[in-house]
């Protein structure tokens, strides 16, 4: 997959984002102590590409509105529904509504899907290198779930950096991939605290870790990095220094967004 701008645009192009639609929360899953997944059902469904996000709008009784963007965690194979994994942000007016108020049956407004270059489908092939920092794993999970749903066999590797084991989102599902012979490889690094007997990495992602991964993958991978700004900057710079063509790297950075 030559990831030039022109090539990236064609498959991801969307005719229009469409208008706002009301969506209903079907179920809520507690992923970690500060991340919950909200499955919403949609009446207006045109599919999406793994990696895309949606806009969410909440309205107060006096007409005040707040909007935020959230990545889609589910694969497009789950039709007419989306999973949104929302991390609780301190003083975040939208994430606190999701965490402290929202119940199944609640209705809010949603618009999308949105986003083009940060997307991948099995047709784009492999190898695929996904690098997640914290809740940056969410759009990458949509890619991995899509890959599983399509029984893809091209190689894929997720390198996932979390502060502690309790911060790891989708932990059981990621663990289960290790017993699937064609499942993606998953490597964790825990940067702040790790349990006794932990065999994964215990440091920030560095050049040595990147070199090890690239050696294992053999062919140069398509790379998607998602996480906080400083994380993405350092991983992307490390990959470029290690010889990965900048055009094969796609990044999504997030700061605090409430």
């Amino acid at each position, binding site marked *: 997959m030559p990831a030039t701008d022109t090539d990236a645009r064609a498959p991801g192009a969307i*005719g229009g*984002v469409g208008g706002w639609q009301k969506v209903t929360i079907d179920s809520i899953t507690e992923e970690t102590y500060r991340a919950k997944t909200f499955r919403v059902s949609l009446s207006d469904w045109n599919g999406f590409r793994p990696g895309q996000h949606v806009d969410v709008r909440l309205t107060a009784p006096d007409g005040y*509105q707040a*909007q935020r963007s959230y990545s889609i965690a589910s694969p497009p194979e789950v039709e007419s529904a989306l999973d949104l994994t929302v991390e609780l942000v301190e003083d975040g*007016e939208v994430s*606190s509504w999701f965490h402290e108020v929202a119940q199944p049956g609640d209705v809010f407004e949603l618009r999308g899907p949105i986003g*083009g270059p940060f997307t991948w489908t099995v047709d784009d092939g492999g190898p695929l290198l996904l690098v997640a920092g914290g809740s940056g794993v969410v759009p990458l999970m949509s890619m991995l779930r899509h890959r599983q749903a399509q029984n893809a066999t091209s190689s894929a590797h997720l390198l996932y950096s979390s502060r502690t084991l309790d911060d790891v989102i989708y932990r059981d599902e990621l663990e289960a991939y290790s017993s699937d012979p064609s499942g993606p490889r998953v490597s964790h690094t825990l940067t702040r605290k790790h349990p006794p007997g932990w065999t994964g990495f215990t440091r920030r992602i560095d050049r040595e870790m990147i070199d090890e991964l690239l050696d294992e993958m053999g062919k140069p991978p398509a790379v998607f990095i998602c996480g906080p700004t400083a994380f993405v900057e350092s991983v992307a710079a490390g990959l470029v220094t290690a010889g990965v063509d900048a055009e094969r790297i796609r990044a999504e*950075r997030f700061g605090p*967004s409430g």
Partner: protein
Amino acid sequence: MTTRGFVGRSRGVDQDRLPPGQYLERGFPVLSYEATPSVDRADWQFSIDTAEGSTSWTWDQMLGLPQTTVTVDIHCVTKWTKFDTTWEGVTIDDFLDAAGVELSSPYLLATCYTGYTTNLPSEDVLDGRAMVAHTFEGEPLDPEHGGPARLLVPHLYFWKSAKWVRGLQTMDENSPGFWEGYGYHIRGDPWLEQRYAGD
């Protein structure tokens, strides 16, 4: 449609200064889809290409043009707004004066060192409304924020303020740039909430 149990918390800020759907951000988030490029000032050039020809400036030549400082609010389509950001650079008017050319075509395409592009009506970059900015809050612009120099068009959503800008090319038609090709609005006025095509 009222959302059950939602009251909102952003009431402390000056709502009249926030375009619809925006919230106040005190940090400076970085939003770009590509790896941050390393552009050496020694190799940097900025060019304006019109039907009449092309004019280019090196880094030092750009610094030799009149310098302008502005303090403006900036609005990202991902919903954050940042108040009172101070930038120094060279207005597009001053580049055009120095080159002795006029923008005779109605549209422009901004091009960048990463291959990123964005389209703009020519009138949106004239009359002091746009500059090539090299200094942010008195410091050289960080690479992750578009340094060594980025376009600054603060009255439009910030994706129009192309990072790592390399030039402006005139266009007779309003051909979409990078994000505009993905369904983002062709002009992107935050006060009209022109986020996506059709808004």
